[in-house]
C-alpha cells in the first residue's frame, strides 16, 4: 500500500509583498509531494501578471515543476472554491495574517471562509519564507474519530516527504470523560486512576493505527504519543505552540453550523490563534 494523499496543489496568488515567499513555499511543497501546482488569481488575466509569476517560478524550472495559472474574476471565496473543484485540487495553500505588534497569527476573513467551506485539504502558512525552513516536528491529532486514521497516515506521509525528525500524536481527551470530580484525596486518587486507564487505552488505540502504516513511512522518524486532558481543538494548538512544532496536522471539521461559530470550538480556536503552520485534512 502506498500513500499519496495529494496530486494537485492550489494556491491563491495575490500580488502582495508576500507573493514571492508564498510562491516559493508552494512550489517547494509541490516538488516534495510530487504534485502539480495551480495558481489561482482573482482578476482578469494579463501578460504582466503572468510574466511576474513566471520570473519567480523560474527558480524551480530545473526541478521540472509543473504549474498552471488560472485567472478568475469575482468574489474571492467563490472563485477559489470553484477553481478548486474544476481543477481537482486536493491541497489548498492559504496565508495567515500576523496581528500587529503581537507575535500572534490568525486567519483573515476570506481565508477563514474558504477553510470552512473547502472540500479539499487546506494548509495555512503563518510565515512563508523564500529560503526553506526545515520542518522538524509535526504534531498530529489522535482524536477518536473515523477520520483520524487517515489523518495520521497523511501526517506520516508529509513527515517522510519533508524529512521531519519527530511526529507527536496528541490524543485530546475530553475532561468530561473523567467522571470523577476531584474534591479530596480519595476522589483525586480515583480520578488519577481513571485518567491513567484512559491514557493507556488511548495509547493502545494510537499504537494500532501506527502499526497499520507502511513501515517505510514510520521507521526514520521519532514517534511520540501524548495524551492531553482538555478542550478539544484548543489544547492541541496550545501544545503545538509550546512544543515548538513546525506543522500541526488535524482532521478537517465535519460540519459547521451557525452555532459552531458563535460558540467557537475545535477548529475555530485554531483559526483565531494559529500556533504554527496548520494542515487540515479532508
Amino acid at each position: 500500500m502506498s500513500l499519496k494523499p495529494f496530486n494537485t496543489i492550489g494556491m491563491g496568488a495575490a500580488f502582495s509583498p508576500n507573493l514571492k515567499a508564498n510562491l516559493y513555499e508552494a512550489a517547494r511543497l509541490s516538488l516534495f509531494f510530487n504534485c502539480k501546482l495551480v495558481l489561482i488569481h482573482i482578476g482578469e488575466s494579463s501578460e504582466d501578471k503572468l510574466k511576474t509569476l513566471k520570473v519567480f517560478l523560474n527558480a524551480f524550472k530545473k526541478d521540472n515543476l509543473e504549474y498552471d495559472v488560472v485567472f478568475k474574476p469575482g468574489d474571492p471565496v467563490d472563485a477559489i472554491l470553484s477553481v478548486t473543484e474544476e481543477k481537482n485540487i486536493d491541497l489548498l495553500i492559504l496565508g495567515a495574517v500576523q496581528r500587529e505588534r503581537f507575535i500572534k497569527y490568525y486567519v483573515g476573513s476570506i481565508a477563514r471562509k474558504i477553510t470552512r467551506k473547502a472540500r479539499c485539504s487546506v494548509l495555512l502558512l503563518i510565515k512563508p519564507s523564500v529560503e526553506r525552513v526545515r520542518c522538524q516536528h509535526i504534531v498530529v491529532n489522535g482524536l477518536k474519530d473515523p477520520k483520524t486514521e487517515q489523518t495520521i497516515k497523511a501526517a506520516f506521509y508529509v513527515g517522510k516527504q519533508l524529512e521531519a525528525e519527530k511526529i507527536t500524536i496528541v490524543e485530546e481527551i475530553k475532561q468530561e470523560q473523567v467522571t470523577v470530580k476531584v474534591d479530596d484525596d480519595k476522589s483525586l486518587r480515583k480520578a488519577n486512576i481513571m485518567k491513567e486507564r484512559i491514557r493507556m487505552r488511548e495509547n493502545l488505540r494510537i499504537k494500532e493505527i501506527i502499526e497499520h502504516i507502511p513501515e517505510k513511512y514510520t521507521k526514520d522518524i521519532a514517534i511520540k504519543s501524548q495524551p492531553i486532558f482538555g478542550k478539544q481543538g484548543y489544547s492541541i494548538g496550545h501544545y503545538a505552540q509550546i512544543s515548538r512544532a513546525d506543522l500541526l496536522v488535524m482532521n478537517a471539521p465535519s460540519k459547521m453550523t451557525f452555532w459552531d461559530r458563535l460558540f467557537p470550538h475545535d477548529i475555530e480556536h485554531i483559526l483565531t490563534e494559529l500556533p504554527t503552520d496548520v494542515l487540515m485534512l479532508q
Partner: protein
Amino acid sequence: MSPKKNNIKDFFTALPKNVFSGFVVSLIALPLGLGLAMASDAPPIAGIIAAIVGGIVVAILGGSHVTIAGPGNGLVGVLLVAITTLGLDSAYAAVVCSGVLIMLLGFFRMGKLADFFPSSAIQGMLAAIGLIILGKQFHIMLAHKIKREDTLDYLIEIPYTLNDMIHYENKGLIYAALAGILSLTIMTFYAKLRNKFFQLIPAPMWIVILSIGFSYYFELVLHEENPISKQYMISGIPEIQQIIADIQMPLFSKVGTISFWSSVLAITLIASIESLLSIKAVDKLDPEKRRSNVNRDLKALGLATVGSGFLGGLNVVTVIARSSVNVNNGATNSSSNFAHATFLVLFIVLFSTQLTRIPLPALMAILVYTGYKLASPKIIRKIFSIGKEQLIIFFVTLLITLKIGLISGILSGVVTTFIIHIILNKSLSLFLRNVLKPNVLMYQEAEGDHNFYVSVKHFCSFLNYYKLKDKLDAIPEDHDVIVDFSLCSFVDHTVMENMHNYQELFKKRGGHFDVIGLDMHDTDSEHPFALRRLLPVPNIIKNNLTRRQTSMEELAADYDLHYNSEKQKEVDFLNSFLFFNTKHINHIYNQLSYKKGVINLFDIEFSEGEFIAKEVVRSTMLHIKLDEAIPEFTLDREGFLEKVYAFAGFKDIPIQDHSDFSRRFYLLGDNEDAIKKFFNDDLIHFFESNPYYHVESNGTSLLIFGKERLASVKEIKALFDFGKRLREVVSNI
C-alpha cells in the same frame, strides 16, 4: 498510593488526643463566642449556640479534617447591620436563609467562589471588618459606651474616649477600663512568653479565668461587691433550661423586603469567603497532609447555619484562629471539632452563672485585638511592598466597605482591580478577547519523570484564575509540577500569591512546584507589576552586623567554621522533621557550617498558629547530616506536660534496664522495635550525662535545639560541641 488503614482502630487510638485538643479549643471558643455575639449586638449565648451546632454538624457531615467551626470574626460587621436594620428575630431568619444559600453553593460545587475576588480586595474587605470590630468595641473596652450611626464615627472618636478615660471619677468605670486594658495587654504579650505551663491555656481563657477569679476574690475574701460597674458586666447568660425554653421560630415576616435579602446576600458572601479562605489555610497546617472536601464542608456549614439560626445562634463558619490552635494541640480528625462543641455544652451547663462575672471590657479587649490583627499596619506594609497599585485596590475596598457596605466594598475592589489591569496593560481587548478561552493546558509528560506541565496563555488574573486552579487541583501534591507563564502576557498579583501558596503546599507534601517563564516579563516594561516583587528575591545584605553576629563571626574564625549571616529561604531539609509539621518556617539566618555543611547551626524564624493565635518564634537549632539511616524518633526532657500529653494518647517508649533514662526522658516514635534497638548503652549514657536538648531524627539527619529562643554565643558553643559528640556516638552504632 498509601495502603488501606484500619480506620476504626486508628480513630480510637487518636481519640484521646483529639478530645484533649478539642478541650483546649473550647477554652478559646468560649470567650470568643460570647464576644463575637455581643459585638454583633446579639445575645452573648448566640455565639456559643453557633459554635455548638457548628461543631457537632460539621464534625459529622463536613469534608475537612482538622478545622473548627463556629461564629466568625468576619461576620460581625454584616450581622451587626442585619440585626440593626431587621431586628433580632428577622436577623435569625436571614441567618437561616443564608445557611440555605451556603448549602446550595456546596451542592452546585461553587467552592471556587472565593477565587473570583482579587486578593488585595479581600484583604481590604477584611481590614474594613477589622476596623468595624475595633472601632465599636474599643469604646466598650475602655468603659465608654457610645452609639453612633456611622462606623467611621466610632473610629474618629477613639481619641475622645482615651481622653475621657483619663478623667474618670467613677470607681466602677475605672475598674472596668482597667480590666479592658489588662486584658488587651494579656492578648498582646501572650505570644511573647514561651512558658509551657502558661501557654497550655489560651490567652482569651486566661482573661476569663482572671476576671472570674477577681470577682470571687472580692466576694469571698474581701466580702465586697465587685467594684466593676454593673452595666459593664456580661448580662443575660441564661441557664441551659432557659435556653431550651426560649427557642422560638425566627421571624420570616420580612422575607419580602429588599433589605432582608441584601443582608442575606452579604452574610452568605462573607460566610463563604471566610470559610473557604480558612479551609485553605488550615489544609496547609494539617500534619497528615490531607486535602479537604470544600464543597462537602460548605454543605455542612450551610446546614449547621440553618440549625443554628433556628436555635437562636449566629452563622457557622470555619474559623482560622481556633483551627490553628486545634492543629497545634495535636488534633488529627474531626472528632476534636465535636469535642470542642461538647465541652462548650458542659461549660454552659455547669458554669453559666460564673460567666456573668466576666466584665464586658475584658471580653471586648479580645475583640479589639482580633480587629487590630485584621487591620494591622503590617498588612498595609506587605501590600505596599507588592505594589502601589495594590494599595489603591486595598484602600478603595476598605473605604467603600466602611462607608457604604460590604457588598459594594468588595464589588468596588473587583472593578478597581480590573480597571488597574486595563491601564497597566494599556489594552482592554487582551481581556475581552481572551477571557472565555480555555487558556490553560496541562499534561503529564509522556517521557522522563512524568512531570506535570502546565502552560498558561494570554493572561492570567483573578478573572480566569479558576481555570488554572482547576487543573492544579487535579495534581497530587507529592508530584512535580512546572507552571509555564511564558505565553502569558500578564499575570496578576492574585495569581502570583496563589502560586506561592501552591509552592509551599507542594514543598510540605514532598512535591515540587516550579514557576517558570516569568524572566521575560521582567525586561518587558509593560508588565512589571508584582511579578518581580513577589518571586523570592534575596534580601538586601545588611551592612552592619549585630554584636551577636560579630561574635558568631569570630567563633567561626576560631573553630574553622563557615559563617553566613544572610537570610535563607531554602529550608526544604527541615520540612521532613516532625517538629515542623504544623509550623511554618519563615527563614534561617546566621548560619554556621562545619565540614561543608555536615553540621549546620543556624538561627531560625518560624511561626505556629494563624491569625490571633499566631506566634512567631525565633530559635537556634543544629542540623546534623548522618552517613547512615537511623530510625525516626523524637527525644525530649520528661516533664509534667509530657505526662499530660501521655494521658492524651502520646506514647512514651520505655527502654528496658534504663529506668532512669526512661523517667527523665520522653521518647517518641512510630517504629518502636527499631528505636529500642537503636538506643544502646553508649547512646543512653551519652544522653544521661549531657545537658537536655530536644533531639529529633527524620531518618537521615538529626535536629537538635535547646530552648525556643535564640541561643547566646556560649550556648551556641555548647550546642555545637554536643552535636559533634552526638554525631560520633551515633556513627559508632
